[in-house]
């Protein structure tokens, strides 16, 4: 076929349109949701957590998490005054049924909910041999279970113990920050049920999100900051003994 000027003028815009679709990839699930307008994280307000386990139960039901594995869990810390380096930590069945009454009331006692930190520089996505786990443009670390090999390298690479292999699918699994919900304007299942507001979904790109005010007025930390993973789960009131 001879490429005339006329044909070129028709072909170029057509190719540009086609290229746009190739670059766009899979269409977004929610038509009004704009990936570029969000950057998701979470705020955990430790003094507010009562260790009731509602978040763990809600997560388990919402995401069909297999028994004995956890996308989110709660740890109870007991720190004697002089043993900050050696806290006693327990998490019976991930705290899904709450915790038995604490016998030792000396020292400090508090609960720490844990979940995937949706790191901006996540070690798990770095090591995945096929890119089955990835960071979305709106800052959520997800796993494509139709592509995951089940090599478990990501489980080894996560410094926070957030990943596991789902025995049903034989693929890596972790908290998805209820991506199916947040892209529809809902909050996560765990935040939805938290009776004290200890967990709050945070959109760091939304200037109206109360997270900005909170971050300005409180001293917050992330877990294992020395790992430099760009963790986006912020903890308020976190004791130095928490790992």
């Amino acid at each position, binding site marked *: 076929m001879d490429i005339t000027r006329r044909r070129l003028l028709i072909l170029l815009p057509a190719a540009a349109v086609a290229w746009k679709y190739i670059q766009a990839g899979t269409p977004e699930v929610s038509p009004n949701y704009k990936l570029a307008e969000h950057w998701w994280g979470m705020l955990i307000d430790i003094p507010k957590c009562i260790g009731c386990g509602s978040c763990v139960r809600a997560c388990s039901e919402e995401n069909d998490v297999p028994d004995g594995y956890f996308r989110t869990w709660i740890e109870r810390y007991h720190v004697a005054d002089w043993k900050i380096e050696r806290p006693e*930590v327990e998490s019976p069945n991930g705290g899904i049924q709450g915790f038995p009454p604490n016998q030792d009331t000396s020292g400090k006692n508090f609960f720490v909910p844990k979940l995937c930190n949706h790191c901006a520089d996540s070690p798990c996505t770095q090591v995945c*041999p096929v890119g089955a786990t990835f960071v979305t443009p709106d800052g959520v670390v997800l796993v494509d279970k139709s592509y995951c090999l089940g*090599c478990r390298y990501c489980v080894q690479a996560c410094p926070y113990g957030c990943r596991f292999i789902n025995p049903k*699918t034989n693929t890596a699994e972790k908290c998805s920050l209820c991506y199916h919900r947040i892209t529809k304007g809902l909050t996560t299942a765990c935040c939805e049920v938290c009776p004290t507001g200890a967990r709050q979904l945070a959109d760091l790109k939304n200037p109206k999100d109360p997270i900005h005010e909170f971050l300005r007025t409180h001293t917050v930390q992330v877990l294992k900051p020395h790992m430099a993973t760009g963790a986006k789960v912020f903890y308020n009131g976190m004791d130095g003994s928490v790992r």
Partner: protein
Amino acid sequence: MYPNEVELQWSILIVLYPFITGLVAGAFILASLERVFRVQAVKPTYRLALLTALSFLLVAPLPLQLHLGHPERSLEMYLTPHRSSAMAMFGFVYLWYLMAVLLLEIWLDYRRDIIQKSQTSTGISRLVYRALTLGSDNISERSLRIDERLGYFITLIGIPSAFLLHGYVGFIFGSIKANPWWSSPLMPIVFIFSAMVSGIAAVMLLYMLSGRLRGKPIDVRCLDKIAQYLMYTFIIDFSLEMLDLLQRIYEADESFRSLDFMVHTRLWTSQVIIQILLGTVTPITLLGLTQILKFTETIRKRIYAVAGSLTVIGIFAMRWNVVIGGQLFSKSFLGFTTYKMAFATREGLLTAIILILLPFAILWVLVKLLPPWLDADSLPASGATPAHGTS
């Protein structure tokens, strides 16, 4: 302990994987001693070392494949590799080593024998050898010289490739910053030297075993030389490992208390007793004694057999301690788990035993097909006419 950490992710099959690739790299390095560094004394083991390396390299991907949750997707690692992943890039290092180094070198080295056998053998063997010639039938002096030069060049490339192969396995572990037991820049170099140690010991044992099975005398001068190299490499390897250990003990960072407890309890037998005392200090001492004292040939051979066997066991224990040990403690440094090995499951002990025996079966076939022996009755029939004559 984080609740998801109770289950161990990498089983005995992943212990086998660095053990097997280590034997490959080590055997190749031994072969290159003769080819590149002109250590004539080890010539009797040159071809045996190459065939050993190939047998183990062919089995190396199997433990990984059996371990994957979705083995049917494993080719995706080659088709859509994630370039920042050490594991993805290892696939290419493996292929490079298999195709560009080992297969090519063995083929070039055996080309003349293969062509001669394709002309002198009959029946199915003839077909097999004809296929192995890959259509080549020129064994003129000039072409053999080219083979020799090309083989030398490939071995030259092969040495850094062998280092890359096993150094890269070390990097797969050493680059995991989340795991203090693995995360160390020394890991690749320790893996390279331990690979050389295990490969040299394995070929030495196989050479001794082959002499016994074939009822032929073995070249003790060759054994002495191999044992000498084994000892030197082992001393470097042990020094590096001790350096790593000392650094950890002296620095005593946040992970130290947890790792120290692990070594004194769960890893005491496999690390301190088997790896360090039985698998390292004892063989180094035995090999050192053969250098200092004058023993008879028979005693030397016995010492080499014991030292070689202990070395291979010690290096296997080292792989075990790295892979399994790295998963027994919590990344919170609070709490430990245990490894419960199943028997007749996909990742069980039986599978591991089959996988470790499989390279020996492959080696047996390869040795039958391409005899590596240098004695007169194993050499190809003389007088076979080169197809193209000299040119």
